[in-house]
């Protein structure tokens, strides 16, 4: 899932300082599951903002609400009327959610309260590890399920490079060499042939905005 982390309070305070009625909108999807932007975090942030304002001798109206997913238009229903009562919106969703909220309410300033970090896995409570950079060209099939884009400092498709050193990366002795791990795993599976052939360089499709259309829906969206 998408992993996010809350922005520092100072940054959030800075973005809302010009507004007196603030509506903080949480997301019940990924942001909620990674403990960054669900109902509990909305309540916590609102309390922190209120306390900070009080310490500065200021008063603003700040209310909170959480919708199921800020990346799906279906769940915005009912917000239209409420949003009009506020000067600005704070979004506790990932970058996609913030943009969709801003698109839905183009006359309202929308500010992110989270930094979107990665697509990752849950190691433990509140401990997440990046595992995918959505490069659009998955090579996990021949790298033994270890992503060279995410795990290798150079995101090499044909590794390791000359910087590998006793299983560690040249940029830090703390960082494992992804290609060493790929080699070991494939060797254990007797699949070293998978990395003997040269793979073409990545096209870096994630450098431009992408639109995903599932094959079964291609005809439906063909005209638009």
């Amino acid at each position, binding site marked *: 899932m998408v992993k996010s982390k809350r922005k520092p309070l100072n940054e959030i305070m800075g973005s809302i300082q010009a507004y007196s009625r603030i509506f903080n909108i949480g997301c*019940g999807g990924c942001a*909620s*599951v*990674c*403990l960054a932007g*669900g*109902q*509990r975090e909305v*309540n916590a942030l609102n309390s922190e903002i209120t306390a900070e304002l009080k310490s500065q001798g200021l008063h603003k109206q700040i*209310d*909170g*609400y*959480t*919708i*199921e*997913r800020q990346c*799906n238009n*279906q*769940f915005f*229903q*009912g*917000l239209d*009327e*409420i949003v009009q*009562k506020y000067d600005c919106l704070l979004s506790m969703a990932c970058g996609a959610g913030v943009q969709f909220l801003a698109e839905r309410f183009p006359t309202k300033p929308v500010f992110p309260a989270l930094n979107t970090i990665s697509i990752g896995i849950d190691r*433990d*409570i*509140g401990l997440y590890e990046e595992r995918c950079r959505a490069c659009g060209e998955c090579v996990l099939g021949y790298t033994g399920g270890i992503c060279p884009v995410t795990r290798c400092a150079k995101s090499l498709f044909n590794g390791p490079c000359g910087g590998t050193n006793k299983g560690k990366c040249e940029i830090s002795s703390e960082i494992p060499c992804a290609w060493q791990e790929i080699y070991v795993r494939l060797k254990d599976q007797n699949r070293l042939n998978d990395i003997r052939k040269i793979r073409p360089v990545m096209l870096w499709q994630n450098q431009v905005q992408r639109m995903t259309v599932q094959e079964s829906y291609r005809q439906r969206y063909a005209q638009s």
Partner: protein
Amino acid sequence: MENLNNVEQTIAVQSQDTCQLLNTFKDKMTLSLKVCAHCTLCAESCFMFMKNNKDPHYMPSYKFINSIGVIYKKKGNLKRNDLEKMKDIVWKHCVLCTRCYCPIGIDIPSMISTARSYCRAQGVYPEFDEIY
């Protein structure tokens, strides 16, 4: 619906806006509840129902009748226990994949999401660090 907010006093309500939001859905929700023919055709479109040995508790119609249906039927006169039970129905038994199908056209996901909104407004929602 004036009493929608009458959950036990110990339960915090976040703001009046959240209850107003529920009131704005009143017509749509009550109509949907009224027209449900209990045909059970929604059941097999739900993967949770299919994966749980067709347990009727996972039927989409069961889920919305026993969540948002109860909220409107009881006009908000609910106890915290009712909401805790509802929490399981609308979060544990439904992932809001929005794939449920109703031949009459009932918007089941919006009913579940409205029930979730109501629960949240009363301070009842899943704690995602509890599952470990």
